[in-house]
């Protein structure tokens, strides 16, 4: 299993992501600098979290225009699995690879906390050993995670089974009280139409260690690594 993790100026969770993937798969991902334009030969491409270009102007906007994202797009069109987490999700929406946008949190504040997300459908390879209805405890850390799309788009997402995660409580309840950032329909993660690109705001990569953050994120990575 060969994984590429893209790195932009300002990316800052690439090491966390690499550690998670290495822990699950046993193989070290390659960190790929944003100026590269060739991503051939990878089974998985991850656009990790951080503040690419300082989150200036709009989160993900500048990274979305970089050479490496053209390569990511090409590979995605060939069917390679692409995962965007947090800033990576923002980048993927900016490139149009995923619909909608991530707006400023409804509470207007950065939110860092452990939260629960409910898996809405099991979808290889992204959800690993998770089944529909399973709840995992993971971290969020973002200022712009408020998922927005027009109603038609949302209906299309739902209809196509493309909503993968929603913010919930430990019991799997999904409602306004468990919606921590104002996202439409509590959406925390979605798929593209062909199902090989997923974006999510929470950080499963920070839930891979019993002492720090817990291990529930590993359930997801188990699938990515094909070791479920």
């Amino acid at each position: 299993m060969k994984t590429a993790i893209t790195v932009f100026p300002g990316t800052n969770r690439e090491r966390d992501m690499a550690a998670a993937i290495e822990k699950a798969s046993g193989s070290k991902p390659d960190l790929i600098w944003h100026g590269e334009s060739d991503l051939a030969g990878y089974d998985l491409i991850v656009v990790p979290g951080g503040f690419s270009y300082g989150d200036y102007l709009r989160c993900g906007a500048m990274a979305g225009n970089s050479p490496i994202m053209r390569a990511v797009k090409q590979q995605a069109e060939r069917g390679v699995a692409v995962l965007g987490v947090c800033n990576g999700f923002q980048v993927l929406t900016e490139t149009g690879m995923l619909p909608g946008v991530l707006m400023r949190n409804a509470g207007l504040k950065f939110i860092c906390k452990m939260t629960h997300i409910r898996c809405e459908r099991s979808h290889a390879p992204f959800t690993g050993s998770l089944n529909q209805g399973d709840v995992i405890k993971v971290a969020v850390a973002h200022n712009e995670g408020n998922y927005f799309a027009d109603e038609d788009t949302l209906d299309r997402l739902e209809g196509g089974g493309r909503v993968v995660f929603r913010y919930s409580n430990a019991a799997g309840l999904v409602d306004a009280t468990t919606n921590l950032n104002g996202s439409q329909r509590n959406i925390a993660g979605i798929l593209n139409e062909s199902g090989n690109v997923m974006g999510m705001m929470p950080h499963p990569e920070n839930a891979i260690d019993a002492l720090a953050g817990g291990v529930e994120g590993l359930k997801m990575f188990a699938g990515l690594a094909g070791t479920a």
Partner: protein
Amino acid sequence: MSLAEVEITPEIVAEHGLTTDEYQIVLNILGRAPNITELGIFSVMWSEHCSYKSSRFWLKTLPTSGPQVIQGPGENAGVIDIGDGDTAVFKIESHNHPSFIEPYQGAATGVGGIMRDVFTMGARPIANLNALRFGDPSHAKTRHLVSGVVAGIGGYGNCMGIPTVGGEVNFDKAYNGNILVNAMTVGLARSDKIFYSKASGIGNPVVYVGSKTGRDGIHGATMASAEFTEDSEEKRPTVQVGDPFTEKLLLEACLELMATDAIVSIQDMGAAGLTSSSVEMADKGGVGIELALDKVPMREEGMTPYELMLSESQERMLMVLKPGREAEAKAIFDKWELDFAVVGRVTDTGNLTLMWHGDLAGEIPVAPLVEASPLYERPWEPTPKAGDVDTSIPADMSMSEALKRLIGSPDLCSRRWIWEQYDHLIGGESVKTPGAADAAIVRLPGQKKALAATTDCTPRYCFAEPETGGAQAVAEAWRNITATGATPLAITNNMNFGNPERPRIMGQFVGCIKGMTAAALALDFPVVSGNVSLYNETNGVAILPTPVIGGVGMIADAALSVGLAIPEAGLSLILIGETKGHLGQSIFMRDLMNRTDGAPPPVDLTAERRNGDCVRQLITGGHVAACHDLSDGGLAVALADMAIAGGVGVTMDAAPSNIALHAWLYGEDQARYLVATKDEAAVLAACEKVGVPAQRVGISFGTALTLPGGDTISVEDLAHTHDAPLPNYMAGASWSA
């Protein structure tokens, strides 16, 4: 060039904050009148902020050595040995005045500055902390300041990708016009890869990297050394705007270059920018430095040598490279899209020589500039001894109501609203996050061992009895680290005080230093770095003396560390340390009885040491399920904290008959801990063996906290009372306890 011809009048000298005597020294050093650029350099170098002229004499009395100390005060940050070739590099820094004027940017650039201090030493930052003091919650500005400062700290640290894992916040009207924003960073370096600022190698290139220089914060250093008046808010932008994105690139670029052996020395440009960095580098190496100021990357047109030397633009560094390594270094900075310019060279003249398009723009002998820097042994008056306080209370006062009021009060309510705005999880090594333990625990990547870090100070104790307060601040930091199971190793400190020219204020400073010294010696907890912020006054009203202590410790196996949450029912709660029921200067007396007189609890350093060493052994020996030190609010508040965090109730045993119930519950005697344990007998026996007072005070049980006598509050009610006030207040509500 008009500035060159500026005539140096007595007014101009005064505007630069130099006294007549100080100016005379300038004349003696130069043997002539300075030009304006040179005057500016003397002015910032001899400002309180850079020269420590009021505090140096006393700072020198602090204990700074120990087998663990690799680098004490004097470099960008202190360095301690944490075994296996690893070191912890840390320091604390204030950004008080700028944060009052522009809270977001002031706090943000404070965080940026302290991180630069740490990575200049070759360390990758792994943890940020911050100690904050705001005015009365009902003061018109407080809410806006809290909101801006917290957002600014988060904004910078989150973007840098360094977890912010701890800190403290107090509210007191003494800070209405002068808030405190102290930021601390802890980093990791290998002991053979530590970088220092000492310039050497005649002819070696001096290189400027980072952001371009603008007219930011010119005279920022002198601002930080002058009292506030009403109209200082109107002054020209002396506040800088931070660019955490650029600093993140600067961090990565510097660490990448540091992995080679191209660097001779490196110094960040903090307060007084290019001036203090070049002077310090030259002075430490006993060499001269020649700078071609026209080569400095500039953001604005028409900048003068004066402005270039005094600018406090952020996100910049100065380095001396080995000869011939420029291209290699430049390639790294190009990759990270940062400016890189060879701006000068090391010389054998011992002078700071400034060139401007080939002409001499100023020349100052470095050694006299540094050595003649004024040193004042300011007159000081000891703080009068506090008397006894009447600690009686109304006969019908409800102890559970008192507890609810206290845990929902500004100083004791949950800080969740704050730390949820800080990314405290990035890095995946945050073993104990904010609210989970008395000190933050951050593991070393790929290792079992972890660092513990905390910041502490109880300003009301320092105000009442500076010496006790200074000792208490150090002891509390030591205790907070101990309560996690870690071994305290060393401290950094931030001395925040009023105007040192007032003997009473100077007396507070001296008292706190004496207390800190005694405690640091008794606890083997030496000072390895620090910062002084004086003149924290507005219209003649000084802040409370606030010597913030940042403590760092280590635990060999992070898995052995404990938090404060009671994990389950059926555990015994053991109070360790002696309880006399000291109420003077307690939160209880201040907030519920409106009494702020009396002496603070005495600090018995022998007991601190003995009790703490005992607790640490119990924890690392696996006998303890949770531990919390007792501080503000005493036993009842500590129990409530532990119950709320664990979501488990506690039924307290009967109170001792020789102490009033409110003194038992709310007294603030020092050197105490609460531990939750399955092995009550083992814990009591271990304490007895080393002569440490210990007694069971209750057991964990059910879903409510039951005070002695049966007074009961549900943990849910407690949690709500604790959690709601700060978010409500920040949403615009007046303070509701």
